[in-house]
C-alpha cells in the first residue's frame, strides 16, 4: 500500500530524501540554540558559598599629597563577591573615612580616596592607618597599611574662616563675664586644621553664653546670588552642659538689603537658624541657604527687609552659643570651619 510522504507535501518525493529532510530540520533547530555555556542564571554560587581568599597583595603609596587634586586608588582582588570595608583613620586627628563595597575586584571604580573624611574632624598632615576587612567571611584576615598625608585636599567652596588666621578685622565678639570665648589653637582636637573657636563658662543667669559676629574684611563675602544651590556649612561640637534640650547654636545671617554697607535690624533681613545638640562629636551643620526663608512649620518668614535669602547681600554671620542656665555646670562648645558650597553639603 502506498502512502504519501511528508516531503511530498513539501518538496521531495522519494523516501530517502524525506528522512534527509527531517534530519536537516533537526540539525537546524539544534544548531540554532545559542551557546549559554559561558553564562549562568542567578547570583554566582562562588559568591554565596565559595571559599574566601585574597588573590593579590594590597599595594598603597607610602605617602600622598592630596593638595594636587589626586586620589588614592585601592587595588585588590579577592576570590568571591563579598562585603568589604576599607577604613582610613587619621592617627592624630581621629578622622575617619569608610569605603564599603561588595565587588570581587576592588579598584579605582569602587574604592578611591581623595583625602576627605566622612564627617568632622577632617584629616590633617598626619599618618593614616588603612584597614581592609571582610565582615561576612569568618576567619578572614584584616589587611593593614599606613599612608603619610603630605598635603590636604583642596576644599571645593567659599571658605569664610577656619579660625587658622586669627580674628577678622571687622568681627565682633560677645562673651558673658564668666565666659572665656575665643580662638583656640592648642587643643589638637579642631575639626579641621589646628584652630577652632571655643566658648567655656558657667552662666547660671542667662542662656546666652557667647557669640562671634563674623564679618567680611571687604563689603561682603563674595557669595553668589543664587540661594537655591548654596549651602552654609560649619563644624559644631557641644562639650559640656549638653542634652537635646540644653544647648544649641543660633546663627544670624544679616543681609544688607539696601546696599548701604550697614545692617539695619529694623529694615533689613536677619535670618535666624538654630542647631540643637545631637551628640558630643563634631557635627556638620549644613543648611541650604534658600531654606532660611521658611520657619519651622515650613511657612515663609516675614522679616523686616524683603524676606528673600540673598547670599550676595550677606554681610554678617553671627554664631551664638546658648545653653541651659538652670543646669549647674559649665557650658562649653566649639565651632570650626565655616564654608559655603554649591550644589551639595561640604565634604569634610
Amino acid at each position, binding site marked *: 500500500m502506498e502512502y504519501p510522504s511528508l516531503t511530498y507535501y513539501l518538496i521531495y518525493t522519494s523516501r530517502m530524501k524525506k528522512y534527509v529532510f527531517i534530519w536537516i530540520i533537526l540539525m537546524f533547530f539544534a544548531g540554532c*540554540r545559542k551557546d549559554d555555556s559561558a*553564562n549562568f542564571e542567578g547570583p554566582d554560587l562562588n559568591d554565596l558559598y565559595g571559599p574566601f581568599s585574597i588573590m593579590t597583595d594590597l599595594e598603597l603609596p607610602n605617602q600622598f599629597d592630596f593638595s594636587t587634586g589626586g586620589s588614592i586608588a585601592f587595588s585588590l582582588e579577592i576570590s568571591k563577591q563579598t562585603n568589604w570595608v576599607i577604613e582610613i583613620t587619621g592617627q592624630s586627628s581621629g578622622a575617619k573615612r569608610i569605603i564599603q563595597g561588595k565587588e570581587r575586584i576592588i579598584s579605582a571604580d569602587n574604592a578611591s580616596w581623595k583625602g576627605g573624611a566622612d564627617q568632622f574632624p577632617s584629616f590633617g598632615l598626619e599618618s593614616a592607618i588603612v584597614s581592609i576587612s571582610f565582615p561576612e567571611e569568618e576567619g578572614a584576615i584584616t589587611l593593614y597599611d599606613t599612608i603619610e598625608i603630605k598635603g590636604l585636599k583642596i576644599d571645593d567652596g567659599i571658605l569664610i574662616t577656619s579660625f587658622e588666621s586669627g580674628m577678622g578685622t571687622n568681627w565682633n565678639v560677645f562673651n558673658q563675664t564668666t565666659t572665656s570665648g575665643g580662638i583656640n589653637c592648642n587643643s589638637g582636637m579642631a575639626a579641621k586644621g589646628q584652630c577652632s573657636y571655643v566658648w567655656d563658662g558657667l552662666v547660671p543667669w542667662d542662656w546666652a553664653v557667647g557669640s562671634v559676629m563674623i564679618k567680611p574684611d571687604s563689603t561682603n563675602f563674595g557669595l553668589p546670588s543664587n540661594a537655591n544651590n548654596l549651602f552654609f556649612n560649619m563644624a559644631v561640637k557641644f562639650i559640656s552642659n549638653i542634652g537635646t534640650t540644653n544647648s544649641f547654636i543660633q546663627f544670624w545671617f544679616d543681609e544688607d538689603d539696601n546696599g548701604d554697607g550697614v545692617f539695619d535690624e529694623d529694615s533689613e533681613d536677619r535670618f535666624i537658624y538654630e542647631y540643637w545638640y545631637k551628640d558630643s562629636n563634631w557635627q556638620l551643620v549644613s543648611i541650604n541657604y534658600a531654606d532660611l526663608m521658611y520657619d519651622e512649620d515650613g511657612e515663609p518668614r516675614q522679616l523686616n527687609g524683603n524676606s528673600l535669602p540673598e547670599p550676595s547681600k550677606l554681610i554678617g554671620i553671627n554664631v551664638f552659643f546658648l545653653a541651659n542656665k538652670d543646669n549647674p555646670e559649665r557650658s562649653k562648645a566649639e565651632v570650626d570651619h565655616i564654608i559655603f558650597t554649591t550644589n551639595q553639603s561640604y565634604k569634610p
Partner: protein
Amino acid sequence: MNKLLIIISGILCYWNVLGQSQKFQVNGAARTYIFANELNIDQEIDSITPRNANYGHSLLDLGFSIFPNKQTEVIGAFRIRNELGGFWGGGVSFNVRQLTLKGVAGNKIRYELGDIDLSASPYTLFNNHEEGAVNENSIFSTRRDVVHYDLFYLNNSWRMQGAKASFSLLSNRIVQSINVESFLTRQNPSNMLDQAERLFGGFTVNVIKDKHLNLSIHSVNLFDLSQTITIDHSRYNNSANSLALNYLINKKDNSTSSLKMESGFSTSRYFQTQSPDTKTNIGDWFYDFSYKYKLLKHNITLGYKDVGSDYRAPGAQTKRMNFARSPALYQQISNAFIPRAASPFDFIYGNTQNSYKIDPLLMYFNPVYGNLSPYGMATPNRRGIYIDYTNNGKKIVRESFCKLNMLGESRGNGTNAKRNFIQLSSGTDFYINEWIKMAKILKLNIGWQYEVTTRDGADFEQINLSSSLLDAGLSYQIAGDMFLLLGLKSWSAKGNEFIQSRDDFNRIVDFESIQINAQESSVASGLQYNFNTRNSLSLVYELYALENKIEGNINYGISQFNLLFNLYF
C-alpha cells in the same frame, strides 16, 4: 431557612419534571466527606498544637443545561455546602459554581461565554499533573479526583472566565479541514492601585491535511491592560507561540509509525516605570521532536527536546500546587510555630493552596518530589532525550509503562557547571485473579519513580540528589461491588540541592543550599463500595509519617480516618 428549603425542593421537583423534555437537563454531584485527623508529634517538640482536627462537609452540586433553542445552551451549576456541625443554616454556603452560555451562531461559529475550560499544547497552555502519583491505587486516586473536580483540573485544562469562539473552514482539494479556535479571558481585575487588569487570550489554528498530516499553530498571550490603574507603573506581557506537527509516517495492520514535532518561542516583557532598571525583555524558544512506533499492544516513543532557559509560557508552567504555602491542616507545628511544608499527601485531601489562575512567575517547587520537570514539559532550561514505553495488555498485566528522561540544563544556575537529570518511572497493574484463575478481582498496582540530579564542579557547587517514590496498592473484591483497598506511598530523598528564589521579574536572586535526607510514607487501608464506575462510598484509615534525618528538622505524622460518599449524576 425552612421556606428556602421548601422553595428549593419545589423548584427541583418542577425542574425534574421539566428536565424530561429536550429543553432541559439536570446533572451534578453530591458528596459527603468527613475527616478525623490526629497529629503525631513528640510532646517535647510540640506541646501547643491541638492534636485532633475533625471536620467535614456535605455538598450538592446542581447543574442545569437549558436549551432555549436548538443552537443555544445555558449552563448553570450551583453548590450548596454544609459544613459538618452546621445546623439549621449555620455553616451553609450557597455558591455559583459555573455559568456558561454556549451555542452556534449562524450554523458556523461555535461560541462559549462565561466559565470555559481551555488547553492548547504542553508548551503553551496546559494544566500539568501535580507531583506524587505514579499509577496510584484508587484508595488515593478517588480522593485526588475529588480535589481535581473541585478545582476543575480536568483533562489538563484550566478553568477561566471569558469567551471562546471556534469555527471550521470548509475542506477543499488541498486540506481536509481547518479549525480555528480563539479565546479571551480575564485573569485579574484591577485593584485600582498597583495591579493592572490582566487578560489572557490566544488562538489555535489546526490544519488537517489528511489522515497523515496534522498541523497546529498555537498562540497564547498574557498581558496587562494600560490605564486600568491610577498610574501605569507596572506592566507585564507574555506571548508564547508554537507550531505543532503530527505526521503519520506509516500505518500497517499491526504497526504504526508517526512523527511529532513542536517548536515555538516566547517573549516576556516586564516594565516598571518607577524603577526603569527593572525593565526586562526576555525571550527564548524550544523544540521537541519525537518518533512513535506502535506494534500490536506495544508503543514506544523516542524523543529529543530543548527548552530554552528564558522560555516562559505561564499557561503551561503554572503549577497546581503552591509548595511555598503551608497546608491548611496543621499549618504550623512545634512550639516554635514552624510552618509545615506541603507534601503530595496534602494535595490528595485538598489541604494545599492550589492555583486557579495563571501565575506569571515560576512557582516555588520542592525538588524532593520532582526536579526534572517541575513545570511540566515546558520546564525551561531543559534539554535531552526521553523514551516512553507503554503496553496496553488486556490480561494479567495491564497498563504497563516505563519512561526514561535524561535531561540537562542548557544554562547553569549560579555556576557555569550544569545540572543533569535522570528520571526513570515505571508502573503496571497486575491482575492476580487472572493469574490464579480466581473469579473475584484481586489487583496489585505498582508504580515507581526514581530521579537523580547531579552537578559537577567545585565542592561548593556540586549537587547529588536522589529521590524515589514507590506507589503501590492492592484491590480485592470482597463481594459484589465491595472492595478492600490497601495503599502505600513511600517517598525517600537524600542528597543536596540549591533552592532558587525569584523576584517579581522571574529572575533568580538567591540560592539556598539545602541538605536532604528524609523518608515519607503514607499507608492506607479501607473499604469501598462502588455503586457504579463513578459513584462510591469508601471508608479509609491512613497513616502518614515524615522521618527527617537531618539534625534540627522535625519528625511528625498524621493519622487520618475519612469517610467519602461521592456521587455524580
